[in-house]
């Protein structure tokens, strides 16, 4: 999949949405605070809004080229869209909703009704009225309806925002299944870090209508392009790991070449992301004994970068670990690239996110 967005300019209430981006991931997350223009961007891709200038190309098909006055009508774009409020048709049954976008001619490539209903576990709902569905059921029906139109790209606007935490945890695997079973590329708007990490492989950070950073999810989280991105992503270290055992609420996690202790997850996922905020990493020159900190990692300083009053320290601790310390602290410790140092992280400061 390749979605090319060039020269996008759309004036919104408080700022102009200006985007240059190429999205190539199976799942790309558009990440940013509320009001950053994320929904407007999806509307542009779907063709529901017109920009002042825009060039949008999906794979080898130009969808919008304002300069040449090209704009493929919404219904011919084959782009599925699940909006935040889901937009289920209240006057139609679940089945009629699901079949609304079904093409009359069923070619071999089309996604079959039975398969979608099976994967999203909605077989028992099809004869109900959409007004009698629970939040999670509505979500799955909306996803199925979009999939059944056999889209080339699926746009999801904060698909989990309206759900409470337990329901969210139930829906996330369905999104993973859509990604893996139907191979429909997805662009997914969210302001939730955990959702981004769990589902996406690429990420575009949008703040006040501008793309602040784009790249692999792990890279954006661990190497924010600037302080503003860092503020919104708020998580400096993101390292794939594996839970090897869980004991009394504590998980033993292998990450890179080291073993960490973290608070166990409620879900039984073994494959996780180990997330550590830079300010939660304590640097110590000597490996002094006698501290409550469970995780002590022998590390080497890879690089130092000033960020305002803070210094961002990249460490090699068996995996890339990022620490944020104040400038006076950095001076006092005389931190230099190549120095050995101990990185300490409290158990409660290591967040595990299923992947």
């Amino acid at each position, binding site marked *: 999949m390749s979605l090319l967005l060039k020269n996008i300019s759309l004036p919104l209430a408080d700022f102009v949405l200006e985007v240059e981006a190429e999205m190539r991931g199976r799942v790309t997350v558009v990440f940013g605070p509320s009001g950053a223009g994320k929904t407007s961007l999806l509307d542009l891709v779907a063709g529901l809004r017109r920009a002042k200038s825009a060039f949008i190309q999906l794979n080898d098909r130009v969808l919008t080229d304002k300069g040449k006055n090209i704009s493929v009508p919404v219904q011919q774009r084959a782009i599925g869209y699940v909006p935040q409020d889901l*937009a289920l048709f209240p006057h139609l049954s679940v089945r009629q909703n699901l079949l609304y976008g079904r093409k009359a001619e069923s070619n071999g490539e089309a996604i079959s009704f039975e398969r979608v209903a099976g994967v999203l576990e909605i077989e028992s709902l099809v004869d109900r009225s959409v*007004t009698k569905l629970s939040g999670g059921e509505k979500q799955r029906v909306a996803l199925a309806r979009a999939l059944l139109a056999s889209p080339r790209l699926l746009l999801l606007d904060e698909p989990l925002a309206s759900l409470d935490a337990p329901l969210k945890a139930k829906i996330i695997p369905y999104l993973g299944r859509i990604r893996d079973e139907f191979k429909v590329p997805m662009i997914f708007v969210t302001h939730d870090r955990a959702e981004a990490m769990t589902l996406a492989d690429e990420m575009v950070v949008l703040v006040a209508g501008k793309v602040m950073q784009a790249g692999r999810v792990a890279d954006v989280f661990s190497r924010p392009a600037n302080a503003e991105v860092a503020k919104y992503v708020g998580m400096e270290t993101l390292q794939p790991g594996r839970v090897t055992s869980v004991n009394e609420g504590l998980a033993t996690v292998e990450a890179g070449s080291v073993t960490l202790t973290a608070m166990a997850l409620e879900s039984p996922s073994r494959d996780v992301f180990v997330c550590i905020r830079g300010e939660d990493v304590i640097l110590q020159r000597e490996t002094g004994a006698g501290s409550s900190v469970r995780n002590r990692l022998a590390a080497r300083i890879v690089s130092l970068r000033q960020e305002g009053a803070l210094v961002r320290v990249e460490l090699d601790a068996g995996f890339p670990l990022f620490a944020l310390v104040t400038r006076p602290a950095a001076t006092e410790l005389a931190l230099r690239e190549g120095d050995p140092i101990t990185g300490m992280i409290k158990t409660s400061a290591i967040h595990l996110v299923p992947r």
Partner: protein
Amino acid sequence: MTAEEWQIVWFTAWVSALSTLLILPFGLALAWALARRDWPGKSIVETLVSLPLVMPPVATGLILLKVFGRRGGIGGFLHDHFNFDVVFTWRAVVVALSVMSFPMLVLFARVAFEEVNPRLEQIARTLGASPLRVFFTITMPLAARGIIAGMILAIARALGEFGATIMVAGNIPGKTTTLSLSIFQNVELGEDSHAFRLLGISVVLAFVAVWSSQFLLRRKRKLP
């Protein structure tokens, strides 16, 4: 009830229904355009459409008389090319009722369209539906109650129309006499018992129309 009274009631009922059916396509198209689109001159058209509600009906009738008369623009054209006369025939009654009930239909249909969440229409398009299919499968069904309520009130408005009708259609017994014209005429002639029977029928028709439209609009509000 005499045979003549029944004839008047039937005539009034069917010209009212016919005029509402005739304005339905135009009324819906205009209501939709007012609810969903911005265009230059929109506020002027909005005002023009509402004029028959507030102008003296007799004045509206006079305008229609001039336009549809043999020397008027439309009337002259119809007479010269099709030998088709409008004024002082039952057709003039239909014209008067159509013009007078048009604002009612447009006002209600417009609100009904505005209450349909545009997101539903947009998402229907992303599912591959053409704008026309979206209109008939999403917009119309969801706006149906409001539109039907508007139609009932438009018919009710037509049933009671007096001023414009008498100007453009006159009061020709058996040809253009409607309920209201007949009540007026009977009172003038001192035939109060006739007038009261027709009055009773008017009250019943008006009550049923308003009550059923309120029922429809109330039911709509309860939907999620």
